[in-house]
């Protein structure tokens, strides 16, 4: 077996376990119906963003939407928005060995959004957040170049990786710049709308839901 094949198999196993762990994590949070619907709509929105901007390589609002989803909805939903965006959009583009990598890369973008929310206590500056989105674009590029090197490249993974990095540099820079611009224009607005959705659904439950032992609260 060649070292190349070893790389492929090792990365496949690693990715599969990370993705499975991510799904199990989301599963364990037992998302309520409104979270499921919100995640699904965000995924669909990100997918449509990817489809609409398909003619422009790497200039697409998808990464921003995933980061914003993570920011507004939290860690596990952010991860799942990212990884499902990759999975679902590839039903329209092309599923392939790159799908798990994209699921991972976009899932990480979702986590990044949630991290930003946690670290900044929900209030990062507009420009700072835009820069973070740009950086996420570059990070996404690094992951995908690694994927290309492992899946399609030759026997020398490291060289292939650098070749792919050089080759895709203009595209990755475009991705980062587009992320920056998209977030600067629409980011805070989308966050506000998403947070409003979340606020609107915060349940105030004065009556005892599962414990009819306290009928006094109902009367």
């Amino acid at each position, binding site marked *: *077996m*060649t070292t190349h*094949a070893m790389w*492929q*198999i090792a990365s496949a196993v690693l990715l599969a376990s990370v993705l499975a762990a991510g*799904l*199990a994590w*989301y*599963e364990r949070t*037992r*998302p*309520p*119906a*409104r979270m*499921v*619907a*919100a*995640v*699904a*709509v965000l*995924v*669909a*929105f990100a*997918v*449509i963003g990817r*489809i*609409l901007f*398909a*003619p422009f390589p790497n200039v697409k609002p998808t990464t921003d939407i995933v980061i914003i989803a993570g920011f507004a909805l939290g860690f596990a939903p952010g991860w*799942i928005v990212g990884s*499902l965006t990759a*999975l*679902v959009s*590839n*039903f*329209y*583009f*092309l*599923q*392939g*060995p790159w799908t798990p990598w994209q699921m991972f890369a976009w899932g990480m973008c979702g986590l990044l959004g949630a991290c930003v929310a946690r670290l900044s206590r929900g209030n990062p500056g507009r420009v700072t957040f835009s820069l973070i989105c740009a950086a996420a674009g570059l990070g996404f590029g690094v992951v995908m170049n690694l994927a290309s090197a492992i*899946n*399609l*490249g*030759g*026997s*020398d993974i490291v*060289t*292939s990786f650098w*070749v792919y990095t*050089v*080759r895709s540099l203009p595209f990755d820079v475009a991705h980062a710049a587009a992320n920056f611009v998209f977030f600067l*224009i*629409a980011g805070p607005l*989308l966050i506000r*709308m*998403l947070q409003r*959705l979340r606020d*609107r*659904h915060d349940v105030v439950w004065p009556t005892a839901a599962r414990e009819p032992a306290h009928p006094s609260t109902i009367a």
Partner: protein
Amino acid sequence: MNAIAETAVKALSFGYRDRGGVMQQARATIVVGWCIALGLVVALYENPIVLAFVGFAALFTALRCGVIREVSFVLMIAAPIGLLMALINPIATQNGITVLVAGLQLPLVGTFDVTLEAVNYGLILGFRSLVIFAICALYVSTVDPDELLRSLRRRSVRSAITASLAVRFVPVLARDGMNMAIARECRPGEPPSTAAVVRGAFARSLDRASDSALALETRGYALARPLRVDRDRRRAADWFVLCSTFGLIALIAAGLLTGLASFEDYPLTIIGCSASDVAFAAAIGIVAALPALLVARNTGNRR
């Protein structure tokens, strides 16, 4: 705006088509397994004879499943990528002993030699990527995403429901967006900015999410539990594809143990092409093509 909408419609029309072929008849998970086995062959064997047989098997299956147009469409798009890979390799690697051109200079890369082995291997990489694309195209056009997500519900039921709902939302939201684009043109005076329309579309999507959550609740989502495997529904196509998958895995293992269809990239290109190597490659191709060969297309009602 209209050009973008047209592109979107085109993209939305690509994907799964039920044309009644063996791959569409078989269960989604079984077909995925078969595609992975075929992909494994491509990952483990760089011998171009094996790659050629796998490529033929994929194209033959696509033909018999009525998706040859979809697959060739993908190959047409992928051709430049394959070509690029064939061109990059001689630049990227200095391995190989037969120097064709010495001392070429390029910005960023610097001085380098072009070797025959690197050219050969570049061609093989390019060809291999095309075979991978053919397999992926076959997969996308013959596996029903809905069925695939359904099988995910055996493991991770809430993620699978989320994904199904997202797949369902894509055309709905796209249609909303297109209607809003038309409404924008119907407004008198200066049309509002695209950003405003996108904002409106996003707000509307979130409203749709609230409505959809209600529907999920009334369908008993709160009780959702992993699906049970339904073994009775296995049919002939499933068994053929399953046998082909196991056959491929057995052949891969046998090939690795006996060192058949070997390939050396550097320092000298050595392609195993003895009679037994070719027979081995042909066996892989035939085993892969077997389901498509044996199961006729079912053009009537499916399932």
